[in-house]
């Protein structure tokens, strides 16, 4: 799946523009990394790419069609391939298993093999029956990442996914994202340099004051 932003502007309050004329094309596969300091607009940009926010001006073109001009049915059928992982994980009441399997359940899928593999690999098997209330920040993040990876989406967008993760999990995640990027589009935003990631990135971008620039 290909996502293209054309002259995208975004403002939360109608006065100050957080994104100013962003033009970028994410081809169907590869690992794209967006860097930029706090408040530079990374989260806003990623939510626009994930079709969660509608740009104030400009268009989001998915596989050649302007997404926000489509009807609700067509939008849903495009959106089902795009998954976004929040900067601040959203975890619901219930146990860990309920939360990691939520994505699959919402899709009506009942093939849990890959999910179970991920749970094992990221070392959260012991947690599955614990209440989601008593999780650490790192555990909450792992859950939101596993929940997304389990869906094997065509487009996976991750907002600051490395925060609170230990170094072995960071390495693991970079490996998984790199191998996913062979067949899917993966977009990652981070405010700090993650060495392992830089080596595997297909493209690097820098967001400064709402303008996106591609790096070397």
């Amino acid at each position, binding site marked *: 799946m290909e996502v293209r932003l054309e002259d995208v502007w975004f403002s939360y309050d109608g006065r100050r523009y957080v994104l100013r004329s962003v033009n970028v094309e994410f081809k169907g596969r590869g690992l794209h990394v967006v860097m930029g300091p706090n408040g530079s607009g990374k989260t806003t940009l990623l939510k626009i790419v994930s079709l969660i926010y509608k740009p104030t001006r400009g268009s989001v073109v998915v596989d050649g069609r302007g997404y926000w001009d489509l009807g609700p049915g067509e939008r849903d059928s495009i959106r089902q391939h*795009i998954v976004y992982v929040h900067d601040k994980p959203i975890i619901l009441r219930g146990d860990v298993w309920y939360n990691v399997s939520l*994505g699959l359940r919402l*899709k009506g899928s009942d093939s849990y093999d890959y999910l179970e593999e991920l749970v094992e690999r990221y070392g959260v098997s012991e947690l599955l029956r614990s209440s989601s209330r008593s999780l650490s920040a790192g555990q909450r993040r792992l859950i939101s990442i596993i929940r997304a990876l389990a869906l094997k989406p065509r487009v996976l967008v991750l907002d600051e996914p490395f925060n609170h993760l230990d170094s072995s999990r960071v390495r693991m995640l970079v490996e998984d994202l790199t191998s996913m990027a062979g067949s899917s589009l993966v977009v990652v935003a981070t405010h700090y340099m993650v060495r392992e990631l830089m080596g595997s990135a297909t493209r690097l971008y820098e967001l400064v004051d709402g303008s996106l620039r591609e790096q070397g």
Partner: protein
Amino acid sequence: MLDVVVRSIYISLAATLIAFTLGALISLLMLATPRRLSGLLVGVFDALVGVPTVVVGLVVYMLIHPGGPLGFLKLLYTPTALVVSQSLVALPIVVTLLYRYFEQLWGDVRELVLSLGAPVGKAYLLMLRESPPALIAVYLIAFSRAIGALGAVMVVGGGIEGLTNVMTTAIALEVQVGNYEYALTLGGVLVVLTVGLSLVARAVGGLVWR
């Protein structure tokens, strides 16, 4: 004394049921209205939370006293008048608590559902699944408000023995005639009830903020 306690509880339960149902409807409607208007409304309900209950009683009295617009219903000094007044006392807190809770919850589940590539409609299901502990907590808080509404029940109920005398009015009346032991016992029951309920509400509500 037992009859006073039982009457208090069932009148307050009925009042809370009305306040809760009405408050839930109002807060859901407010969610569906434009932000500017709902912000204004929540401000109004916030202010109403602090209105002394005796003022609420006075307003209801004006409506239902024999010369009032609803005088023909002959509600003054009946248990129904108590139910109505107490539910009005409890309504604002129900609206403000539920509105804030629903607003935050809806924001979260909507984003979650969208982020996982599922249709927004699924967010309603998740909202239903998430909310029971919060609803119970709000219900108990509203009940505490209702059962402690002395001013309102004094004005519209008059504390008539065997009919509209509830815990708060009984305490006030017994103190006046020097029956301190009775008043203190009832006061104790009332404190145990409201404090107990607010502890339960806290515990249940704690489940909400996972």
